[in-house]
């Protein structure tokens, strides 16, 4: 009996671990429907600044540290401190601006909703129909 309970417990734990955690969201009008981690990194490092339709890419970040931010940055393959130094280099070289950081996921979601060409990330359960989901990062992917 105990073995069965443990088995079910571990199955549930495993299932929970594989759950989608973070959604990469964008303004409804962006000209893509999905995005790879390499493309996402190019946007967040400022290496690529335009969408395919020549519209400026505007990236938003989340200020507070937390699981959502941790999963997202792991997916990018860069630590928050490394990304900060990339942005600092762009800023001090006159090559670009760091992303605007939002205090809450709700604020970030609203900002993406109302800013054409914008992209950001929130927990998947916070996504609404007013934004486009370009990728879903599971905890394991992250």
């Amino acid at each position, binding site marked *: 009996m105990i073995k069965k309970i443990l088995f079910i417990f571990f199955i549930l734990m495993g299932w929970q671990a594989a759950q989608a955690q973070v959604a990469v969201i964008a303004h409804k009008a962006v000209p893509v429907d999905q995005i790879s981690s390499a493309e996402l990194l190019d946007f967040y490092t400022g*290496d690529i600044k335009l969408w395919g339709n020549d519209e400026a890419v505007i990236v938003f970040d989340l200020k507070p540290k937390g699981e959502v931010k941790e999963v997202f940055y792991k997916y990018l393959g860069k630590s928050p401190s490394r990304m900060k130094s990339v942005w600092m280099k762009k800023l001090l070289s*006159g090559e670009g601006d760091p992303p605007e950081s939002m205090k809450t996921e709700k604020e970030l979601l609203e900002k993406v909703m109302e800013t054409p060409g914008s992209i950001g990330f929130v927990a998947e359960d916070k996504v609404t129909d007013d934004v486009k989901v370009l990728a879903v990062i599971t905890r394991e992917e992250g």
Partner: protein
Amino acid sequence: MRNLIKIIYIHLLAICCSTSGLLGQAKETPLRIFGYFQVNFTQETGTSAGSESTNSFNMQQLNLLFQKNLAKNWSAFVNMEALNNFSSSKEWGAFNLEEAWVKYRGSKQFNLKLGLMIPEFNHLNTIKNRMPLLPYIIRPVVYENSFEDIIDLDSYLPRRAFAQAYGFIPSGRWKFDYAVYLGNSPNINDRSALGQTGVDTTDVFMTGGRLGFRYKEWRMGWSATYDRTNEFGEVNLFFQRPPRFFNERPRLRTGTDFFLRWKRLSWESETIAVNYDEGDERFDVDRLFYYATLGFQASDALFMYYTYWGTEDEFVFVDAQPGIIPVFDLYQGTLKIFVPSLGFSYGLNDRITLKGQFSWVDISSDDEFFKVDFRQNVLSLAISAFF
């Protein structure tokens, strides 16, 4: 290569065609003013004859930056720098206009900068004066702007250019970078009696560029510049060549840069070789610079490193007229500077960084007439702030 030329051509055409419609698509932003400075305390302890011990505070560097997006795809940037406790009334330090350029952002493959700029050469050149980005207090010697009074930094590096095209071509996770630029030759008028100081007095350009690639946390590049220099004009006194024979001698500077990060460890290194075509086998000068840094990111805030950097200036001078200056009948030697250092940088917060560095300075020359044997230990502490 043909594709690259086509991309550059299309973009140049696009710039010309789009200029008339600029106001209509203008995306102007307010002028932003920001900057950073670094103040240090240095204790030098002499460890050889003639090497003295000193203590000093120093406002090492302050940069004021101005940035503005002028229109869609166009931005402007100005960088002004004050060095070494700058004071015009006391004639301390220096104040320099380092950069003032406009940039056209065409695409990832093509960007164009016009105006005064620091050109791409190895990796450190363009960021050498961005103190908040660097863990060092005393930078690898040819990048240390505050040593400008002591070392001819322009011999090693292209420090100014006036037009640069650059960008990258992506291929999966790989990115292939390029930059090509044009600037003045190093023959700049600095004698106010002759009028219009700061301009090139010769009919030659400095041309240069960098090719490189990036793959995840790995980066490599090769750089080169070609120009003609008057720096040996005076030596004709000893060789009886036609007047101006040693003027505008060709100079080739080549560089390599390498960076690799693996987990918390990083390795960064560069070399620069300066070769001249002196035109006379009795006279030869070559310069070499190298540096390498092994870094360890102990935490988000703390970075520790071991670095060493050095220069080697080889000099051969065979006097064709013995007796003019007897000791110069044969001068052959190498002036070496070698400086290993241990250091750290600690980010107190997003804007303030504390730094510490301990260096062992060793300067020597193996020539029998100009013996140099100078050793000194240098302890530096600094605070760097971004505002």
